[in-house]
C-alpha cells in the first residue's frame, strides 16, 4: 500500500516563475447545521471565506438547506466590503444505499426548487431528522410511495451541477456512480479532489484526474471544509465524540488525524494543487455556471379574495370599513379615519392585503364557526386595521401605540400577527389551515434548538471523561449568554480552572454554546404559499402526523420575506371560556370578552377599584401574568391603580431590571420619596416620562438610542433586533458600546452637569433586559376579565385556573386553607 513515487528534482520546481494567485472558490463545506458534524457556523465560514479573499463559498450541508439562510444574511451584510464575493447555496446529498456523497448546486431557481423537492422526498421517507435518500431518487425513479403526493416523477437532477466526493474505501462503486451520473447529467459533473495530508495525496489526485478523464468529469479542487480555522479541530473532535457517544480517549480512529480540513486561502490551495492547476481553474468554471442566489427566492402569498372580481386589497378595504362601523358605532374620529387610511395605503404599497385576509379568515373561522376564543397580540395590537378586522381587541387609539412598529416602509420585513387560541382547541384551527391551503402549501416553521450553557457543559464534560458528580457540580455554574466563564465559580466547586484539561474544556464549551443541535417545530408559526411550498424550502417530517415543518427557523424566513401566521395556544383562554360558561349557568349572566375590556371607560362589568384593591393585597393567584411569587411580592409595593401600572409591573419584575438596579429607583420615584426633577426641554426625558425616568421597554430603548445616542431609525431597529436575538450573536455588545459612547457624547452637549450620569450604568443592562411594551400591552385582554372574575367569584375562578394550568394548582394546594368553599362547590357541580 505504500506509494513510492520518484522524487521530483526540487531545482526544477524552484526554477518555475511564481504563479499569480489563482482565483479559488471553496465549494464543499459542512456547517454546524449538519448537526454535530462541523466545528463552525455558516456565519463564521462565510466571513472567513470573505476575509481570505476567496471568489465564492458554498454552504453544503448534509441533506439540508437549514443553514443556508444564515450564511446568506452574513454575506449580504458584508456585501459592501467584498462586492465580488459570491455566496452559493448547495447541498451535500448523503445516500442511504452506500453511494458516495454528491454535492449538488442548483444552477437556477427551478433547479433549486427541484432540489428542495428531492430533499422533501428523502425527509418524508425517513424518520424525523433522519432523511433517507437513494441514488435512484435523484433521477426521479425512486421507489414507490416516495412520489405519491408529488405527482408524476420528476428528474430532480435537471439543472443541477454535481460534485462527486470519491469514496476512497470503494473506488469501484465510486466509478460506477460517476459513470451513471456522467451519463445522465452530461457536462454537469465534477469530481472533488482534496489534499488530506494522509500520505497518499499525490496518488489520490492522480487517480481522481484519471477517473475524471475517463468519464469526462474534471477534477475540482476542494478541501471538504469542516471548520473555518485550524483551531476548531478541538470543537470538531468534541462534536464527533458527542455524535458517536464516545469520549476523547476512546474515540480513536473516529477522530481526524490532523487539523487540515479548515478553510484555506487561494494561494495555499494553488500550492497544494500545483500539479493539477486545472482543478483550481475548474472552481471558476463551476461558479460561472451557477445563476442562482437566494435573492431569487420570491415569495408569493396565496390569493385571498372573496370573489366578485375584487382584489385582495379591495376586499380588505371593504372588510375594514364594515368592521370599523361595528367597532365605532358612534362614528370615527378624524384621527382614526386618518390612521386607517394610512395603514391601508401602506398595506397596499407593501402588498400585504392577502396576509391580513388570511389572519382575518382564520380568526373568523375560529371565533364564529368553532366558537373558539382567540385574540391577536404582539405588534399587531398597534394596528387599527387589525382592530377593525376583530383580530385584536385593543383600540390602538387608547393604547397610544404606533403603527410604524408593526409595518414600516423602511423596514423591509413582513408584519407579524400573533393570534392566541384556546390551548385545548388550537389543533382544530391548525387542521382548518391545512385543509384550506392544502398540505403542500402549508408548513410550520422550524425552531432551531441550540446548545445552551447547561447542555453544552453536560455533553462536553462527558466527552472529556469528566465524572457525573463533577458534571452536576458544573451545573451550578451560571453562565449567561455571551458572558465569560465564571472562574471564581469553578474554584468554588473545588476545581482548578487552570488545569489544562478543564481549560480546554471550557474553551470548547464557549464555542459550542449556540451551536444548533436539532430542528424542532415552532409552536405555531404557519407558512403558507401560493405555489408549492416544497419548491422554496425542503419540508421535513414532524413527530406528529399530518404536520409539515420547513427547515428554516422563524428568524430565517424573514430573509426570503416569507409571511408567517402565528397560531398560538394560550391556556388562559380556555380558562376564561369555562368561566363564562360558569357565569351563565350559575349567575345567569351572559358575558362577552369585549364587555370586560371597557374598564377604563367605567363601563366595565367589574368594579375597577375592587380589582385593583385585590392586586394591592397580592391576591392574584392564577391571574395571568401577575401570578408568580415575584410578581405577588412586588404588587403591594407598586400598588397599581391603572392599567399602565400593571404594564410596568410586569416589565419591571424581570431579571434585567432587577439586576440593573431599576426597581428601587422606580418605586421611590413613584412614592415620591426620591424627587425627580423633570427637565421639560430634554427630549430624553420625554421618552422616559411615563416610567419616571427609568427605561423599561424596548421601544424606550430604541427612542433613547435615537434621541440620546444619535442612532438613525434603521440602526435603532437593528438594535431592537439585536435585543430580540441576543442569544444568537454578539451584536448586542457592539451596539452597547455605541450606545454608551453616543450617550456620553450627547450628554456633554445637552446637560453640562453630570447629575444624571448615574443613569449610564443602568442603560448598560438595558439591552438584554427591556421587554417590548407592545407585548405587555394587550395583556389587558386577559387581565381585566380574569382579575375581575377573581374579585367577584374568587374561588371558582381559581378552580378554573387549576384546570387550565397545573402550576396554579400547586399554588392552590398550598393555600387550600382559604375559608370560602362556595365557589368550590359551584365549580364542582359544573
Amino acid at each position, binding site marked *: 500500500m505504500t506509494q513510492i513515487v520518484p*522524487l521530483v528534482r526540487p531545482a526544477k520546481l524552484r526554477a518555475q516563475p511564481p504563479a499569480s494567485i489563482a482565483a479559488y472558490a471553496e465549494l464543499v463545506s459542512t456547517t454546524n447545521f449538519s448537526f454535530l458534524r462541523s466545528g463552525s457556523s455558516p456565519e*463564521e465560514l462565510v466571513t472567513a471565506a470573505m476575509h481570505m479573499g476567496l471568489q465564492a463559498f458554498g454552504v453544503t450541508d448534509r441533506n439540508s438547506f437549514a443553514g443556508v439562510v444564515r450564511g446568506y444574511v452574513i454575506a449580504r451584510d458584508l456585501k459592501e466590503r467584498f462586492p465580488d464575493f459570491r455566496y452559493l447555496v448547495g447541498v451535500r446529498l448523503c445516500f442511504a444505499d452506500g453511494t458516495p456523497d454528491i454535492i449538488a448546486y442548483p444552477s437556477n431557481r427551478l433547479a433549486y426548487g427541484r432540489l428542495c423537492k428531492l430533499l422533501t422526498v428523502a425527509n418524508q421517507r425517513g424518520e424525523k431528522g433522519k432523511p433517507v435518500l437513494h441514488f435512484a431518487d435523484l433521477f426521479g425513479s425512486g421507489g414507490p410511495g416516495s412520489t405519491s403526493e408529488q405527482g408524476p416523477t420528476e428528474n430532480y437532477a435537471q439543472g443541477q451541477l454535481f460534485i462527486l466526493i470519491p469514496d476512497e474505501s470503494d473506488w469501484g462503486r465510486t466509478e460506477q456512480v460517476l459513470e451513471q451520473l456522467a451519463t445522465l447529467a452530461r457536462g454537469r459533473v465534477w469530481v472533488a479532489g482534496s489534499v488530506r495530508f494522509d*500520505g497518499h495525496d499525490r496518488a489520490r489526485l492522480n487517480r481522481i484526474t484519471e477517473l475524471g478523464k475517463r468519464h469526462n468529469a474534471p477534477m475540482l479542487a476542494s478541501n471538504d471544509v469542516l471548520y473555518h480555522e485550524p483551531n476548531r479541530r478541538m470543537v470538531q473532535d468534541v462534536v464527533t465524540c458527542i455524535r458517536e457517544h464516545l469520549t476523547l480517549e476512546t474515540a*480513536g480512529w473516529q477522530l481526524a488525524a490532523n487539523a487540515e480540513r479548515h478553510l484555506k486561502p487561494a494561494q495555499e490551495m494553488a500550492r497544494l494543487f500545483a500539479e493539477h492547476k486545472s482543478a483550481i481553474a475548474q472552481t471558476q468554471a463551476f461558479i460561472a455556471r451557477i445563476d442562482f442566489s437566494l435573492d431569487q427566492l420570491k415569495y408569493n402569498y396565496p390569493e385571498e379574495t372573496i370573489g366578485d372580481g375584487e382584489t385582495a386589497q379591495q376586499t380588505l378595504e371593504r372588510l375594514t370599513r364594515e368592521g370599523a362601523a361595528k367597532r365605532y358605532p358612534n362614528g370615527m374620529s378624524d384621527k382614526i379615519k386618518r390612521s386607517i387610511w394610512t395603514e391601508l395605503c401602506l398595506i397596499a404599497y407593501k402588498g400585504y392585503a392577502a396576509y391580513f385576509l388570511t389572519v382575518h379568515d382564520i380568526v373568523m373561522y375560529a371565533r364564529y364557526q368553532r366558537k373558539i376564543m382567540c385574540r391577536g397580540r404582539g405588534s399587531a395590537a398597534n394596528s387599527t386595521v387589525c382592530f377593525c378586522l376583530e383580530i385584536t381587541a385593543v383600540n390602538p387609539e387608547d393604547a397610544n401605540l404606533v403603527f410604524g412598529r408593526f409595518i414600516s416602509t423602511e423596514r423591509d420585513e413582513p408584519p407579524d400577527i400573533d393570534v392566541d387560541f384556546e390551548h385545548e382547541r388550537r389543533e382544530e384551527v391548525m387542521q382548518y389551515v391545512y385543509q384550506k391551503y392544502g398540505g403542500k402549501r402549508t408548513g410550520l416553521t422550524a425552531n432551531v434548538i441550540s446548545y445552551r450553557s447547561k447542555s453544552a457543559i453536560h455533553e462536553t464534560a462527558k466527552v472529556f471523561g469528566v465524572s457525573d458528580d463533577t458534571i452536576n457540580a458544573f451545573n451550578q455554574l451560571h453562565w449567561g449568554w455571551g458572558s465569560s466563564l465564571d472562574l471564581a465559580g469553578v474554584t468554588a466547586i473545588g476545581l482548578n480552572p487552570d488545569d489544562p484539561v478543564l*481549560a*480546554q474544556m471550557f474553551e*470548547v464549551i464557549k464555542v459550542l454554546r449556540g451551536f444548533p443541535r436539532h430542528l424542532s417545530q415552532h409552536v405555531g408559526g404557519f407558512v403558507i404559499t401560493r405555489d408549492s411550498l416544497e419548491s422554496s424550502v425542503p419540508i421535513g417530517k414532524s413527530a406528529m402526523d399530518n404536520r409539515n415543518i420547513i427547515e428554516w427557523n422563524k428568524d430565517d424566513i424573514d430573509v426570503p420575506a416569507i409571511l408567517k401566521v402565528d397560531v398560538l395556544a394560550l391556556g388562559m383562554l380556555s380558562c376564561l371560556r369555562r368561566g363564562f360558561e360558569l357565569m351563565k349557568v350559575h349567575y345567569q349572566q351572559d358575558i362577552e370578552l369585549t364587555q370586560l375590556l371597557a374598564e377604563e371607560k367605567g363601563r366595565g362589568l367589574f368594579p375597577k377599584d375592587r380589582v385593583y384593591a385585590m392586586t394591592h393585597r397580592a391576591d392574584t393567584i392564577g391571574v395571568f401574568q401577575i401570578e408568580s411569587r415575584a410578581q405577588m411580592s412586588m404588587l403591594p409595593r407598586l400598588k397599581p391603580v391603572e392599567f399602565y401600572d400593571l404594564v410596568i409591573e410586569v416589565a419591571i419584575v424581570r431579571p434585567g431590571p432587577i439586576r440593573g438596579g431599576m426597581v428601587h429607583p422606580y418605586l421611590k420615584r413613584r412614592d415620591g420619596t426620591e424627587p425627580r426633577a423633570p427637565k421639560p426641554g430634554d427630549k430624553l426625558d420625554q421618552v422616559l416620562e411615563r416610567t419616571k425616568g427609568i427605561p423599561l421597554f424596548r421601544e424606550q430603548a430604541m427612542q433613547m438610542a435615537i434621541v440620546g445616542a444619535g442612532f438613525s431609525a434603521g440602526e435603532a431597529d437593528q438594535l431592537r433586533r439585536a435585543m430580540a436575538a441576543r442569544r444568537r450573536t454578539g451584536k448586542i455588545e457592539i451596539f452597547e458600546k455605541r450606545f454608551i459612547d453616543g450617550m456620553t457624547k450627547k450628554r456633554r452637549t445637552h446637560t453640562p452637569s453630570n447629575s444624571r450620569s448615574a443613569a449610564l450604568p443602568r442603560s448598560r443592562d438595558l439591552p438584554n433586559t427591556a421587554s417590548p411594551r407592545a407585548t405587555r400591552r394587550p395583556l389587558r385582554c386577559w387581565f381585566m376579565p380574569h382579575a375581575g372574575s377573581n374579585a367577584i367569584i374568587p374561588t371558582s375562578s381559581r378552580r378554573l385556573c387549576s384546570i387550565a394550568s397545573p402550576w396554579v394548582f400547586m399554588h392552590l394546594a398550598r393555600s387550600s386553607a382559604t375559608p370560602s368553599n362556595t365557589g368550590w362547590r359551584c365549580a364542582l357541580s359544573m
Partner: protein
Amino acid sequence: MSVGQNLADARAMVPGLTVLELDRPLLEAAFADFADWHSNASPLVAVMSDVTVFGDLVLDITGVAHLFGGERAMLRTLLTRLRELGYAVSGAIAPTIGAARAVSHFARSRWWKPPISILRSMACRPPPCDSTRPRLPGLPRWGSKASANCRTRERKPLQAEFGASLLLRLDQACGHIEERMTPRLPPAERYAERRFADPIGLMDDVLMTAHDSAIQLAIRLETEGLGGQAFHLFLYRVDHQVMTLSVNSARLSRDPEHITKLFTHRSERLEGAYDAGFGIDMIRLAVSSVGELDAAQLGVFSQRDVTEDLDQLHDRMSSRLGPMVVLRTQFQASHTPERAARLVPAIAHATNNDGLRPDLVRPLRLLPAPETILINAEVPDGLPASMIWRRISYRLIKASGPERLGAEWWHSGQRLQLVPPVKPKPPASGETPEPAPYTPNLPLFDPDAMTRDYYVAEDEAGRRFWIYRQGFHRDDEPASWYLHGVFS
C-alpha cells in the same frame, strides 16, 4: 456478667476487670478463613457480616444434606466437629436465611425446621444488644407475649416505633423478602474432589491428586462438550484452612496434562508460601469460565504434545512466571504511532483488533525513540532528498508523503502556545471598520506545536525509512527532523 453488657456496668460489677479491645480486622480475616474451610460441606459458603462481630457463617445446603445422611445429621456432624475443636457454636437449618439466623441465635432448641409459630415468636425477640446492631429500645416494654404477636400486628405502628429493620427481619425470616448470600469462593458448578482418610502433605502428592482430579474432570467436561479457562485447586487442611491455587489458560481447554502442567508451574512459584500444616484431608479441582469446546480438540491437543501451541506456551510461561510478566502487544486506536500499540498480559482473554488499520503505512520496526536526523528537503512540505543519520549520509531517491499527524490535543501534558488568529484584510481607507465576527479564542490548541509530517523515503540501497518533521516549516528556524522507524 453477660454478653452484650455495658463496659461501665461490667466494671462496676467486677472492679479489677481486664479489658482488651477487639481486633476486628484480624478476627474477621480469621473467621473468613475458617468459613472457607466449610466449603468441604457445601460449595456455597458465605459470611453474613451484619449481625455478630465477625459475622454469621451461612451455608447453602440445597442438594447437599443427603451426603451427610439428612439435614438433622448434617447439622449435628458440622456442629460436633466444631465443638470438638473447642468452639462454642450454635446452628440451625431453616428454609430461609433469616429464619435460620433467628433460630440459631435466639431459640433454645436447635429444632431444624421450626414450626412457623415458633419462628414468629423467635424472630421478634429483642436481639442482644451488640455493637453492630442498634438496640430496639421499645420492644422489651411490650412484654414477651405482645412481642410474640409482632407478625400479626399492624405494620405501620410497628415500623413507627422500632424502625424498618424489625419488619425487614420479619419479612426475611418469613421469606417475603429474598435475602442473598455472596459466596466466599466462586461457586464452581463442575469440580472433582478427593478425600483422604490419612492426610497428605507433600506437594508432589498434591499434584498427583490434581492430575487424577483433572482426568476425572476432563471426562466429565468431555461428555458435556465443554472446556474451561480458569482452574482452581482447593486444598482443605485438617486445621480448617483452605489454600487456593488458580491457573488460567489462554483458550478453552480440558486437557488433564496441560492443566496439571499449569498447576506444576504454579506450585513452583509458591516457594515458601506452601504450608500443608498438619496435612490435607481433601482436594478439590474446580473449573470456571466454562465454554463450548468440540470434542475433537482433545485429540488434537494430546497428539501435539511435542509441537506445542503458542497459547499453551503462553499459559505455561504465565503460570510459571506470573500472569503480569508475560505480555504481548495489542493495537490501540490512536493516530500517534507511539500510542498505537500497548502491552497487555498474554493471558488476557479476548484479543480485539479494533485498533488495527491495515490501510495505514506503518513501518515494521519503530525505533524506541525517534532519532534526530539531518534532512535536505524542499520547504514547506516537499519530499526529503538526502538524510544524515548517525553520521552516515543517505541519498534518498524515492519518497512519498507527507502524512500529517496532529497532536492528540486532549493529552495535554503541556500548555500549548497561542495561535495568532486569522488576520482580516485591512479595510480600504475611508471605510469604517466592520466589527469582527464574534469568535471565541481557542488559545489552548496549537496545531503546529506537535504536528508531525511523516514521509516514507527509500535510499539507493533500497532501505526504506520512516522519517518525520516536527512542526511546520518556519523561516526563522530550521525544522527538526527525526527518524522514527524502518521498513524491511
